[in-house]
């Protein structure tokens, strides 16, 4: 039932969609292909007991935290009726590879260069397992394996091992996972005390959203209710190229750190430029009560502290003067690293694969994920800077630039190369637990 009340049915929502996993942790993403719909349903049946509801947030002492989601091709492979398949929005039905032009996945990031089988019609069921350490993760994976191994018609086709350091630093060295919105009725506090909670319908089907309407819910209702969309992207990070760029545009190590902070909007410690514009403050960066407690309009409308074109101000412009309304384009975002760290100070590429497994959670692929990717990451019209792209994650090609507002004359960085390359990804639907049971009991 669609409800205007703010009471979220936490016992039916998958915990992984709502709650972040406390760091540090080790994790694994796996993708299964379903060649036999009955076998696919059996896998779901076996998997459901391992999935935790959102009433049970991930705790450090918990063995593991498992979540499951299906692509459009996966729903088809399970034998979901056509009328139901047709009720999903176009971006989901098309899948991420077909949306490449919208997402800036061109050149090195284009689907023809993606890692197989990402972007193909074989990607059906995605399972995430996160655990406080590797030993416990392996134990859980072994158990998970029993849900699909030796089952004809089910194949494990892809796996990615990932981790979050205790510092939450991603490969470029910046503390990640700081900013997340409060979801009305969830009991989960947002990281910015100045941002009122977002309506639950921005993230879960069956609840009112920020436009005071119900987001378009996949049908039948038992399938859609309490579900959400998950965007998964494997993003390769060119760490050496990033360090080289900072070095080439700075004359001291301090200046490099400052330049990096201007591009990110935060110092590596996570301390925001909005609160400490001239020097890092690791204590502030590590303080979850303070490190995201800021807005832009009142004292930094011109971006003299936090450049309008930097990564965090694009991803969440807060109350800055832009075209559009930030609250309609928010998302729950998770980032988990994969691959070996490039040792500090190394500026030559070692050829290793390393990067970020990006995860989005939200009820609108178009209005939230694709819009932010297209309008905010890969364009700057929304704040009046033409075609500039995000200096860190934008699909730059060496011709773009980045403006750092500074009195009396702004600094303009030129020749931005691409630092983040898409290796693949997919759009998934993470059903509620009742919906997963419904899927497992289909008899088509």
């Amino acid at each position, binding site marked *: 039932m669609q409800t205007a009340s703010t009471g979220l049915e936490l016992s039916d929502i998958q915990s992984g969609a709502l709650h972040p996993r406390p760091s540090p942790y080790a994790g694994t993403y796996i993708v299964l292909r379903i060649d036999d719909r009955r076998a696919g349903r059996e896998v779901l049946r076996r998997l459901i007991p391992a999935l935790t509801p959102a009433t049970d947030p991930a705790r450090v002492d918990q063995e593991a935290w498992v979540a499951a989601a299906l692509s459009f091709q996966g729903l088809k492979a399970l034998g979901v009726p056509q009328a139901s398949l047709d009720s999903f929005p176009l971006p989901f039905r098309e899948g991420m590879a077909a949306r490449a032009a919208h997402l800036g996945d061109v050149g090195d990031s284009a689907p023809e260069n993606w890692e197989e089988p990402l972007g193909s019609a074989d990607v059906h069921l995605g399972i995430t397992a996160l655990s406080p350490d590797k030993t416990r993760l392996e134990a859980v994976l072994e158990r998970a394996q029993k849900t699909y191994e030796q089952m004809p018609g089910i194949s494990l086709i892809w796996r990615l091992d990932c981790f979050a350091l205790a510092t939450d630093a991603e490969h470029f060295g910046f503390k990640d996972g700081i900013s997340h919105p409060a979801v009305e009725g969830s009991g989960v506090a947002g990281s910015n005390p100045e941002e009122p909670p977002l309506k639950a319908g921005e993230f879960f089907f069956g609840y009112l959203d*920020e436009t*005071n309407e119900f987001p378009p819910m996949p049908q039948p209702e038992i399938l859609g209710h309490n579900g959400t969309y998950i965007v998964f992207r494997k993003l390769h990070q060119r760490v050496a190229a990033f360090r080289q760029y900072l070095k080439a545009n700075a004359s001291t190590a301090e200046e490099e750190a400052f330049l990096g902070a201007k591009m990110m909007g935060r110092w590596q410690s996570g301390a925001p430029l909005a609160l400490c514009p001239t020097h890092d403050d690791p204590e502030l960066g590590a303080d979850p009560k303070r490190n995201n407690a800021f807005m832009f309009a009142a004292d930094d409308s011109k971006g003299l502290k936090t450049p309008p074109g930097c990564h965090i101000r694009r991803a969440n412009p807060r109350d800055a*003067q832009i*075209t559009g309304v930030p609250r309609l*384009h928010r998302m729950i975002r998770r980032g988990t690293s994969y691959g070996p760290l490039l040792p500090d100070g190394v500026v030559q590429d070692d050829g290793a694969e390393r990067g970020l497994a990006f995860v989005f959670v939200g009820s609108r692929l178009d209005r939230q994920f694709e819009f932010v990717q297209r309008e905010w990451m890969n364009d700057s019209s929304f704040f*009046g800077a*033409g075609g500039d792209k995000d200096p860190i994650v934008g699909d730059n090609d060496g011709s773009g630039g980045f403006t750092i507002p500074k009195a009396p004359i702004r600094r303009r960085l030129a020749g931005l190369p691409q630092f983040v390359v898409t290796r693949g990804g997919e759009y998934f639907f993470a059903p509620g637990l009742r919906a997963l049971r419904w899927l497992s009991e289909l008899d088509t």
Partner: protein
Amino acid sequence: MATKGEVDPAATATNDNMGTKTGKRGELTMFYTVKPGHEKAIREAIRAFYETPFRQNFEDPRVVDVNVKIGVHDVRHVLFDNDTRLCWLTSFDSDWDPYIDDTFAVRDNWVEYAKILQHTNEAPEGDITDPNNPIQKSSRPVKDVFNGNRILAAGFFPTFPNVTVRDIQRDEKLRKAFEQVLDHPGAEEALSHPALQPLLEFASE
């Protein structure tokens, strides 16, 4: 991919049926039929629509700020066939869906639109002033009418398709600032510095 100032031919395309888009500019064209006997009333409703401060005081910076936040370039209503039909056109920065959702979030003014639409056969029946009318609570009925009556433009040519209203606002401020510079008695000497050469080329106009 086109760089700033150029039009990418591939960018002139329908975008998930959200409207025809050229560069960064989207357009919406809708056709309605006027309810018999409502010809005068719809003309009056359109007049009132344009007489609000938001469409009159276009020099007021607060009004400009709101319209820039919305990203709207223009709106036009054309009554034709003896006022029995209405053509409603608008163009804006971005795609249709985010544009209209954000617009109503900036200004909860959809009833303003409904005041015109109520005189057409395509709008849902019902008194829009009735507190129980769904339109009092949600913009959905207006969006549904818009979406149900839009027709994709076969062609759409803005001269500067990549220049947004926010760019125009900034350029206007810059132009006024430059005029102030030129009005200063020391302008010629100041602009003769080599760093200002590109500006000097505009100083004689």
